[in-house]
């Protein structure tokens, strides 16, 4: 008996569970956890706490010994480990729940030492840089949420080009430093040095807008849960960069 004869003989099933659509619909795992704004913000908070924990360790170590060499090993180690964890997170996003907190911990070691060294030279500079960093973040977050700043493809292209240009300048400066020279404008305390720092701070700050948009759209589109850690990581990278540039700018203004 073929299917046509069977249908004529027994008729169509009246069971509502077996409609024409029963086996044609795609199976979607609705229980899979998705990225949310709340989850991402919590992960940014956890990353900040981890960073402050290790930063306070190197900070206290520096001021208890008053010897830069006591923290230099931890600082360099933290920078290298942070770079490795950052690369691991960028190239393997599914590892972000592990590598992003490790990145925050290792960067904390470096930031604590750097901040302590600046603080020893310029009293009160750290809290000024911290407050300026968070004020910038808050201002841009407000501008983004209210739609004052609307990132589009041109905006992204401009920020990527600016960021790449700064990266290239810093790389050339690093290579030149091996031969005992460097690009003077980076550390110059003259007007051009300050203008350079202001431009770098502006580009670092505008990178925050791209991070906010990535997180907002990820939550809207129901991106995978592990991308909450990736979003928190990208925000941390930008915040750390912004903080260091503000620290450098403030030190130039005080000299």
């Amino acid at each position, binding site marked *: 008996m073929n299917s046509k004869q069977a249908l004529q003989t027994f008729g169509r099933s009246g069971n509502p569970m077996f409609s024409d659509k029963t086996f044609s619909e795609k199976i979607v795992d609705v229980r899979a956890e998705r990225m949310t704004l709340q989850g991402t913000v919590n992960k940014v908070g956890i990353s900040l706490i981890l960073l402050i924990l290790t930063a306070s360790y190197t900070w206290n170590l520096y001021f208890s010994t008053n010897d830069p060499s006591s923290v230099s090993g931890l600082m360099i180690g933290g920078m290298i480990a942070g770079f490795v964890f950052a690369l691991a997170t960028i190239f393997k996003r599914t590892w972000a729940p592990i590598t992003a907190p490790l990145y925050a911990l290792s960067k904390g070691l470096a930031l604590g030492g750097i901040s302590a060294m600046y603080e020893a030279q310029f009293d*009160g500079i750290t809290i000024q840089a911290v407050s300026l960093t968070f004020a910038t973040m808050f201002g841009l977050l407000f501008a983004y949420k209210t739609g004052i700043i609307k990132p589009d493809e041109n905006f992204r292209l401009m920020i990527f080009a600016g960021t790449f240009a700064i990266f290239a300048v810093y790389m050339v400066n690093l290579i030149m430093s091996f031969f005992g020279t460097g690009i003077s404008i980076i550390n110059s305390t003259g007007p051009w040095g300050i203008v350079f720092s202001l431009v770098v701070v502006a580009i670092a700050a505008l990178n925050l807008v791209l991070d906010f948009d990535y997180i907002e759209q990820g939550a809207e589109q129901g991106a995978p849960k592990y991308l909450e850690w990736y979003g928190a990581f990208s925000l941390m990278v930008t915040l750390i960069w912004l903080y260091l540039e503000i620290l450098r700018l403030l030190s130039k203004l005080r000299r």
Partner: protein
Amino acid sequence: MEIVLLILVAIMLVASYFLFNIRASKKQTNRENRLNWYYGKKKKGKAVVNVQDVDI
């Protein structure tokens, strides 16, 4: 001075926490020229089904 800045940082952190949790305005989200971000691999030959569009 430092105490004032510390209090300001604390206020800004709390304010940022609440602001971050609010969805962006429609002026921001209902634009045609929004950026396209990459959130993972799309499998070849399979339709991408948005979980929010599925009736449970």
